[in-house]
Each structure stands twice: as structure tokens, then as C-alpha cells.
């Protein structure tokens, strides 16, 4: 038996530390691999932490509200797993029991006690299985990369239920369902932390009155235009890191959703390239409100779109969500009286505010981005 650390997990690319929220287990409790032992708050959401192996929760070293760096221990498990000497002195592994040779046995099995061998499923009669550890064996014939096999075994997922998207119909790691996130507590603490960090960022806002095409689904329309504009202006689809501007390889729009329990901002990756965007947005909003988002859907944002037009807000200033360098605040879309050649006319307008991290870009960059938003809106 050895003591293995249970460490603060890194649940997102930007996560460097996490806050312990609550323990579900006490010192001395038995835990099973994959069992939830505690909850931690990441920079985005609250997450459950699972035991990496069967064992006993020997020592708890992080208490609620402790801030712990990623990779640092929060507790120690006493576990037999990964013990280098484990099994060294055991006898040879038992030969797998011979498969029933049904095809080569034409005579009917006597009606008496049903032979174990005739039952389908796991190998019969594993002799004296002292190891309690259930290792879900990957079904034969399923192609999967080793990392996916390992992750599936750890999480008790049957690989046969996974749809492979890798070459040669191989299950990739990314094909496994993302870890479920259940934001049970109010997101207030997360918002407080992220927005306090935002106050450290030198940011400015540029407003523009945009002409909007007729239609209804403004959120989707603006999502697509914002993502497309950022793709045209990669200098703003970036973050300030280590003294330099680092550009992102994708456009991820975090969509501010009012969930009733507070703000959540699930991310749409490359929404401008998606023909079925409106449906995707509806689905994401519905699941955000139902608390059914996955961590993957909370990660990868490179900008934020916040639309308060539905609340009859004319214009507002959105705070950046670090390390994102931009945020677009969309106000009410309404008809306005505008000058037209030879008189006045009506035009569908909306005032947006684009917030920019001044370390990443300047006012003119922001103006150019808004010009592209306008262009893409009326394309």
C-alpha cells in the first residue's frame, strides 16, 4: 500500500489554481475509483473531483476556501494501485477458461444444471479473484487509442457505446463524453472572482450605432458577425500573456446566458463556420439554464457576447472576462429615424459597445473590428 496524492486537477487551459469548495468524504473513508470526493471551484465553474483509484482517504490537506495551485495535493489516498510490488509475488495469471466450443459440440447439453460456460458475457469462474478492482475490459473489436481506453476504464465507460471519429473508425480521446459539470452552487463566487480579475485589465469601450438587417434571432446574428469579424482581425482574437500578445487558433464566443441562478457563459467554437448555428445556440442556452453544460462547453472562449436588448437596454458596457481581449455588449434593436437622401427615413438600428483589452489592441483596432461587424451584419 502506498500513499498517493489527490491533486488539484487542471480542468481548463487557463486554470492555474482552484478553490476547495467542500469535501464529500472524511478522513478514513473508503473511496472507489471515479467516486466524487470533493468539489473545487475553477476559474470558470465548480467541479467535482473524483478519486483516481480505490483506497482510503488518509489525509485531507486542503480545507474549504483554500486556494491550491494546479497539481498540488489536496489530500492523500492510501491505495494499492500503482504499487510497483503489487502482484510481483503472485502466481502466474490463471489461463482463461476455455471458451465453450458450441459449434464443435453437436450433442445437446444435458438438461441438468445449466453449465456456467454456456452463459454469455464475462469469462466464467475467475478462480479466487482476490483483486476487488473491477477493470472494465474494452470489448474486443473496438478500436481506440490507448489514452481513450485508459480514460474510459477510469470512468467506467463502455467503449462500445462510443462513436469513433478518428481515422479507421478509431475512438479518439476527444470522442469520450466530456466530464459532466453540475454547477450546483450559485455561480456568484465564480463571477466575483473573474470580474475582480477583470478590474486589473486596462480596458476601454468603443460604441457604434449599427444598421441591423430585418430578422428575429439577434443573438445568433451578432454571434456570427462577431466571430466572423474576429476571424478577419486575428490581432484582437488574442490574449495578453507573458508580456506579449498571443493569438488564438480558433474563435470561441462565450455567450452570456441569464440562467436564473446567475450568469453562465458557455462557449461556441467557431460559430461563424456553422450553418446550424441558431439550433446550436438554442440548445446551449436551454442546457445552460438546465445546469447541463459540460466543462468543455465552458472552455475555449476568446471573446464574450452579451445581449441585453431583450431587456430594453439601449446600450451598455460589458466587462472583459480575462484572458479574453474583447467583449461585445449588444443593446436593443429598434427602428430609428435616420436621415436619408432628401429627407428622413426609418432604419433598424442597434448600439453596441465593444470592450477591448488595451494591452492587446487600440481604439482604431476596435473601430476596425466594429466596421467588420457592421459589414458582416448587412452582408
Amino acid at each position, binding site marked *: 500500500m502506498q500513499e498517493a496524492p489527490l491533486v488539484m486537477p487542471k480542468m481548463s487551459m487557463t486554470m492555474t489554481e482552484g478553490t476547495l469548495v467542500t469535501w464529500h468524504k472524511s478522513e478514513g473513508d473508503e473511496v472507489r475509483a471515479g467516486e466524487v470526493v470533493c468539489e473545487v471551484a475553477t476559474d470558470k465553474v465548480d467541479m467535482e473531483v473524483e478519486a483516481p483509484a480505490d483506497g482510503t482517504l488518509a489525509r485531507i490537506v486542503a480545507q474549504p476556501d483554500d486556494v491550491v495551485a494546479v497539481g498540488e495535493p489536496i489530500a492523500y489516498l492510501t491505495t494499492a494501485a500503482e504499487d510497483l510490488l503489487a502482484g510481483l509475488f503472485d502466481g502466474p495469471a490463471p489461463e482463461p477458461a476455455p471458451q465453450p466450443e458450441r459449434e464443435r459440440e453437436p450433442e445437446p447439453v444435458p438438461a441438468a444444471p445449466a453449465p456456467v460456460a454456456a452463459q454469455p458475457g464475462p469469462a466464467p469462474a475467475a478462480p479466487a479473484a482476490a483483486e476487488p478492482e473491477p477493470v472494465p475490459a474494452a470489448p474486443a473489436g473496438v478500436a481506440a*487509442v*490507448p*489514452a*481513450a*481506453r*485508459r480514460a474510459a476504464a477510469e470512468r467506467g465507460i463502455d467503449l462500445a457505446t462510443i462513436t469513433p471519429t*478518428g*481515422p479507421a473508425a478509431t475512438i*479518439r*480521446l476527444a470522442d469520450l463524453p466530456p466530464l459532466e459539470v453540475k454547477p450546483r452552487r450559485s455561480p456568484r463566487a465564480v463571477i466575483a472572482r473573474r470580474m475582480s480579475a477583470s478590474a486589473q485589465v486596462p480596458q476601454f469601450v468603443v460604441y457604434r450605432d449599427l444598421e441591423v438587417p430585418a430578422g428575429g434571432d439577434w443573438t445568433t446574428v451578432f454571434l456570427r458577425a462577431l466571430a466572423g469579424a474576429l476571424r478577419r482581425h486575428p490581432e484582437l482574437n488574442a490574449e495578453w500573456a507573458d508580456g506579449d500578445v498571443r*493569438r*488564438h*487558433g*480558433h474563435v470561441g464566443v462565450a455567450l452570456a446566458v441569464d440562467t436564473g441562478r446567475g450568469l453562465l457563459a458557455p462557449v461556441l467554437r467557431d460559430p461563424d463556420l456553422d450553418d446550424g448555428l441558431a439550433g446550436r445556440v438554442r440548445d446551449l442556452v436551454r442546457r445552460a439554464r438546465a445546469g447541463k453544460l459540460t466543462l468543455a462547453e465552458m472552455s475555449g472562449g476568446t471573446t464574450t457576447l452579451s445581449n441585453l436588448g431583450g431587456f430594453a437596454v439601449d446600450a451598455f458596457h460589458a466587462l472583459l472576462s480575462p484572458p479574453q481581449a474583447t467583449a461585445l455588449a449588444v443593446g436593443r434593436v429598434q427602428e430609428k429615424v435616420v436621415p436619408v437622401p432628401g429627407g428622413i427615413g426609418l432604419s433598424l438600428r442597434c448600439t453596441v459597445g465593444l470592450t477591448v483589452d488595451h494591452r492587446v489592441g487600440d481604439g482604431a483596432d476596435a473601430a476596425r473590428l466594429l466596421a467588420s461587424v457592421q459589414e458582416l451584419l448587412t452582408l
Partner: protein
Amino acid sequence: MTAVAEQTRTLTYAEAVREALAQAMTADERVFLLGEDVGTYGGAFGVTGDLVHRFGEERIRDTPISELGIVGAAVGAALAGMRPVVEIQFSDFTAQAMDQIVNQAAKIHFMLGGAATVPMVLRAPTGSGTGAAAQHSQSLEAWFAHVPGLKVVMPATPADAKTLLLAAIEDPNPVIVLEHKLLYKQSGPVPEAATPARLGEAAVRRTGADLTIVATGVMVSRALEAAEQLATDGVEASVIDPRTLKPLDAQPIVDDVIRTGRALLVQEAPKTAGFMAEIAATIGESPAFGHLRAPIARLCGLDVPIPYAPQLERAAVPQAGDIVRAAADLVRRW
């Protein structure tokens, strides 16, 4: 004891090799050089330069065109207590000397129950890129790595060219040092001190999260160039240079693949039965296996003799752009 910052200067790879030879010869009078044109001519690639004027013809010995005889003489001298350093003009010509290298130099220590050692070094320019065609451009490191009793070194930087050669000369066993022709004129910082490297210690030249590139010889600098390019597209690659193929320091490679889950193995030599097959198998047999999120990928020279035409010569071995494409593909697909 106070730590003294290591003094370095910028030298070319060829100058670094020459400096190592000069320092070894100054420190130990048993060290001598022999090979074709290593004396007055200064070496086929100018590596030995003016050493003949500094150390004399006794210690910088020009030989006839007779690879088998040169290596045989070195084996004999080593057995007699000397520290010979052989230069073979092109590593391709080691084929002429294979009996002495494989059956004598590598085996005598074992055949005599450890009663004798063969502390010789065989240096040879390797690889393509100079328009020297099929018989002067091969990468034969896997031949030597396969032979028990030989150590194999492939320095990729001027500093390594010096410190690994010093280590090879110090080693009591035969060491094959394969110097890449294209690297001879490349410059880099080289320590002034005559401190040998440790044979069997890989260099992690860059660390990234997305994949591990293992590269040898001239492919190290191409892999680093590729990694820079990949980084601008958001793909972060580690680059690991084994430096010594045998003994191989596999741990840094295994550790890195455990982190990244992807391995791209790059060599100039043809793929079939090449050294990267050994690295691939080593990863596959290691604890990194369970962390693999992609098949181990090899990017190697084509299974063809190196062509003479410059365009075809370039096309026959991996270039930086090929590494970028292979790495991006590995990350994108898996």
C-alpha cells in the same frame, strides 16, 4: 565552492570538433588522430585544420585509402594502450571497415573476458544535403546502434559536438561519432572548458503540450524550426534530441509522451528498420503506452538511395515544412 559561469564562445560545429580534439590531445598524449587527409589537407571537411602543425605528423597521421586498415590499426593501438581517434571521410565508407568495427572493436572486450578494452573513437561525417549523391550521403546510425559493444553518438549542436566527442575519447569502449555534414558550418555557443558531456543523456530542447518530436542529427534544428512555426498556429511541440543513440536515454522521451500523448519521430535515414523504429518500440513498451492519444508517427527519409539532383535530394529527406505538416496532422486528426 562558488559556481563559476561557464565561459562560452561562438564556434562552428567543425571548430568545436577541432577544439575537442586539440584539448584531448593536449591533456592526454595517448590521444592521436588517423585518417585520410587529416594531416596537411586538414580533413575532407576541414575539421582537423591546422592540428598537424600544432601536434605534428606523429599524432596526426595521414593514412592511405584503406578504411579496413585504418580501423584495424586503431583497434590495435587502442589495445596497446593508445587512444586513437579515426576519421572516416564519409560514414558510407565505414562499410569497408565493418569487420574491424563490428567483429573486432566491438567484441574484443567481451571475447577476452574484460581483460582488454578498445578505447577508440571513430568519427565520420554523415547525412545528405551537400549534393554528394548516394554513396556519400547515407545515414547509417542504425547499423552501429544494432551492434552490442558499440556506443553511437549524434551531436546536433556545436556545443554537443565538442563535449560529446570529449566524452567519446574518455570512454574506455569504442564509440562511433556521426557528425552531420550540413552542421559543420553552423555556429553556436561552445564551452571553453574541456568538460565532457555524459554519454546517454538526452537533451530536451523545447517543451510543449501537444506533441513530442524526437529528432536526431540535422533533424533536431529542423524540428526546432518546425516547432516555432507550429507555435504560431497554436500547436506546442516538445523537441527531444537523444544525442546518444546508444546508450539511449529513453526516460525524458517517455516522460514527455506521457504528458503530450503524441509522438512524432523524425530521422533523416530511411524509415525501414531505422533507429526511430527503436524509439517507437521503446515508447510502446513504456508506461507512456496508456497515455498515447494517437499512433506513434515516424517521419523519415524515403527508402531510396539519396539522389544527386538537389531537388530530389531535398525531397528524399524530411525538411522543416514536412515536420510542420506531419505534426499538425497528428494533432488535428487525434
